[in-house]
């Protein structure tokens, strides 16, 4: 049965580690240079301004030092010269699955994407290596003026809209990996929702890395015009290789007055993928942005979804969940910047470390001068399942205004002995009881997912917990 199991896997029994033997249409040489960047831009037939943007970003990338925080050891092991920055898998993009090359289609079949599309999605985008190979959107949405396409098509077909917002929320100089993405970006989603239009059913993008030493640099831009609503889900997997791959995306969200964007990520890269992603949203007056961010896979994730609340009454909600197994470090968190009065935010972070895995919550709450009436609540809970694992919590609260209420609470603990006893006294084995407690721990995340994903999440946690007790 092909439920969209694809999206979630928590570890040891990684089901999506298979790889395809593919003849690529084009594969750039390894390594990063001006030539490679110019070639990407040329192959895509981009306007001059974008080529210039890329080249400027490349210079910034080369100049900027690596971050001196986070997991500096793992970061130092990235070999930028040993990565393919651009691989084109197919000649053209399919509008139906029949148009997608057989082998690639089979991959997505195995991952359950077409079935999920039939069941509960309003639009699907499937990216393989550097390019989106399949794309669809329900006709009724298209008729209402909703734009959902890959970023490259977006640049071609909606140049003004793209030029107005592209790189404005996350400028290339923001950080080294944002600069890298800006130089070599390819694929990703472009979404525009017209004023007042509510897209009630989720749009989904699926990202697959197949090649060894691949770098995937998708770029997503979502603009929700005044009073509109949209829910976007992304998922990702990759094969298991002995060498590492790099995924470094940039996601920019713009929620105009009264708009509502929800962005859900179920990150399940194989454990040889570096996942270094910059995700940031701007929320204007009375707009709401929700990040629902689940990190289960990858070797090292460094990702801190942010909401800049720049209009009065804006709201930011961030729910971040992380699971770190052996060899994994999930350095995740959230940033909320209150730059306008009466803005509110909540951050909930839940993490589990197991088998020597390490989870880190890194967060920022900032209240700028003049942002009166701000409310913010941050709650972090970490579970440590054994004595070899580690959990860190590094929140920063920077408050430059007096009429605000900021609360932060965090706990780190093991699975409660009393809870275990209670469940076992009703006949559950220790493993079943532990799994149940962990499912409960992740419940706030699971309940934000479409049902099919949530069921799968629970199943995978059970799988992960097998043999972890006693």
């Amino acid at each position: 049965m092909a439920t969209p199991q694809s999206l979630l896997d928590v570890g040891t029994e990684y089901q999506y580690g298979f790889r395809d033997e593919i003849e690529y249409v084009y594969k750039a040489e390894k390594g990063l240079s001006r030539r490679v960047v110019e070639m990407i831009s040329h192959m895509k037939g981009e306007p001059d301004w974008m080529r210039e943007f890329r080249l400027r970003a490349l210079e910034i990338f080369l100049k900027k030092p690596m971050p001196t925080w986070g997991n500096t050891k793992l970061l130092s092991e990235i070999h930028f010269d040993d990565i393919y920055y651009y691989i084109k898998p197919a000649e053209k993009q399919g509008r139906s699955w029949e148009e997608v090359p057989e082998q690639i289609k089979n991959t997505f079949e195995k991952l359950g994407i077409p079935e999920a599309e039939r069941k509960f999605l309003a639009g699907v985008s499937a990216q393989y290596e550097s390019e989106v190979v399949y794309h669809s959107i329900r006709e009724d949405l298209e008729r209402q003026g909703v734009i959902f396409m890959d970023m490259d098509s977006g640049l071609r077909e909606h140049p003004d809209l793209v030029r107005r917002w592209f790189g404005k929320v996350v400028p290339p100089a923001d950080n080294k990996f944002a600069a890298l993405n800006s130089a070599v970006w390819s694929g990703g989603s472009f979404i525009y929702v017209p004023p007042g239009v509510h897209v009630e059913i989720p749009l989904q993008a699926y990202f697959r890395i197949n090649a060894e030493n691949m770098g995937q640099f998708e770029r997503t831009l979502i603009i929700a015009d005044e009073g509109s609503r949209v829910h976007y889900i992304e998922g990702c997997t990759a094969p298991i290789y002995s060498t590492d791959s790099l995924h470094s995306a940039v996601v920019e969200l713009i929620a105009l007055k009264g708009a509502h964007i929800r962005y859900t990520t179920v990150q399940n890269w194989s454990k040889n993928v570096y996942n270094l992603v910059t995700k940031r949203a701007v929320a204007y007056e009375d707009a709401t942005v929700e990040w629902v961010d689940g990190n289960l896979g990858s070797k090292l994730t460094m990702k801190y979804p942010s909401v800049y609340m720049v209009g009065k009454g804006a709201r930011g909600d961030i729910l971040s969940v992380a699971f770190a197994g052996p060899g994994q470090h999930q350095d995740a968190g959230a940033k909320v910047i209150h730059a306008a009065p009466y803005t509110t935010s909540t951050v909930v972070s839940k993490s589990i470390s197991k088998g020597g895995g390490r989870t880190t919550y890194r967060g920022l709450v900032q209240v700028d001068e003049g942002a009166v009436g701000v409310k913010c609540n941050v709650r972090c809970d970490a579970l440590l399942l054994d004595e070899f694992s580690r959990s860190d919590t590094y929140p920063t609260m920077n408050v430059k205004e007096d009429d605000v209420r900021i609360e932060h609470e965090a706990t780190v603990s093991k699975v409660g002995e009393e809870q275990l006893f209670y469940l076992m006294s009703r006949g559950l084995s220790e493993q079943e009881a532990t799994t149940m407690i962990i499912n409960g721990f992740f419940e706030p995340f699971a309940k934000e997912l479409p049902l099919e994903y949530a069921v799968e999440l629970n199943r995978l946690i059970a799988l992960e917990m097998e043999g972890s007790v006693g």
Partner: protein
Amino acid sequence: MGNTLMTASPAGLERIKTISHHLGEPDWASALRREAWQRFMETPMPSRTHEHWRRTDISHLRLEDIVPTVPTRTPAPPDWLEETIRVGARRVAGTLAFVDGALAYSHVTDSLRKQGVIFTDWAQAVHSHPDIVRRAMEQLDYDPADEKFTAMARAYATGGTVLLVPAGVRLTLPLQTFFTATNATAVFPHTLVILEEGSRVTLLDGLLSPDLPTRAFGSGVADLILGEGAELTYVLFQQWGRGMEYFHHQRAVLGRDSHLTTITVALGASLSKATIESVLCSPGAVSDMLGVVFGDDNQHFDHHTVQLHTVGNTTSDLLFKVALDGQAYSAYSGLIRIEPGAQKANAYQRNENLVLSRQAHAETLPNLEIEANDVRCTHGATVAPMDTEQMFYLMSRGLAPRDANRLIVEGFLQPVLDRISAKSLREMVSAKVDEKIASGRF
């Protein structure tokens, strides 16, 4: 900044010799000073990019140009200090007072002496108890982040307290030390407290002065060593005058089943940066760490606390309360660190900020690093304005807004001050806190 050795004036080293000579220190003591000085000179100035120094700008400081004052022989305590000493005198077992690094006043009760308690100044202790002081000093570690400043403090230390409580001696009356600056532009207080097995004492370390006419600098260290089952209450009371830029590193090492209560009260100085560290390295150790900060005008406070659990079955509990008025700035950063294998460690940490003015600025960074799983660690932080419901309630009972305000701030800070169990000290500290609250706009 990088090549300190090149630009260094040997004035510091010369001055160390003079001080050592002046105090008639034994060779080992001056050797320790020189060693510390060497370390001070070799350690680069901390960079602003270092996490520990991100929130306090020290780029204007030229530490190599600062030289300590040679303590003069017999200074008299200024009148205001005599008054402070006199008020509490009857209910304390001993008092030391230092002016510009020289001992200006000393009183110890006979009973204290009879019980074998050593409570004296450094200059005296290196002669009278060389073994104890030397052994303790040679064991001390330097925290890398504060190394520049702690090494400097140890090289230039003039004045400061040595307290040793013998095994089993449990003092009911507290001890107090005052350290003040009048003419000196640089002060280097150093406190060493050693509690032997099963002993108990309360010590208040007061660092205080009126507002200073010129800019002054201070770097102090306090080393607290608790033997098995020892109980120490240590109150650090900082009320330097404006003009002072003061750096402080306090480090406590807790023995088996020992219980430390530290109460940090920070009211004064233009700039004050302090690290308060407890190392729980024996089972059964308990560290209660409390703090009160009240800032106004454009005072700058930067407090860093460390609850380091290196073994299991240890407990730490921290509460730091910060009230800010005017354009004051406070950074609080705290680290709970549970090392691998330290099972059944419990650690709590809470930072509360009361922001009283729109221009005040509070930052809080409560950090956890946990590498053992059978633990319970919780931290919390809040930033909030004056509670309007409380204001309303008090005013409905007839209080003027100004008084209601003052009362709420006092009420916010008082729970921490109440933890000073010695009545005389509690009253003295509370009075000074209230005085500062009242002297403001309230």
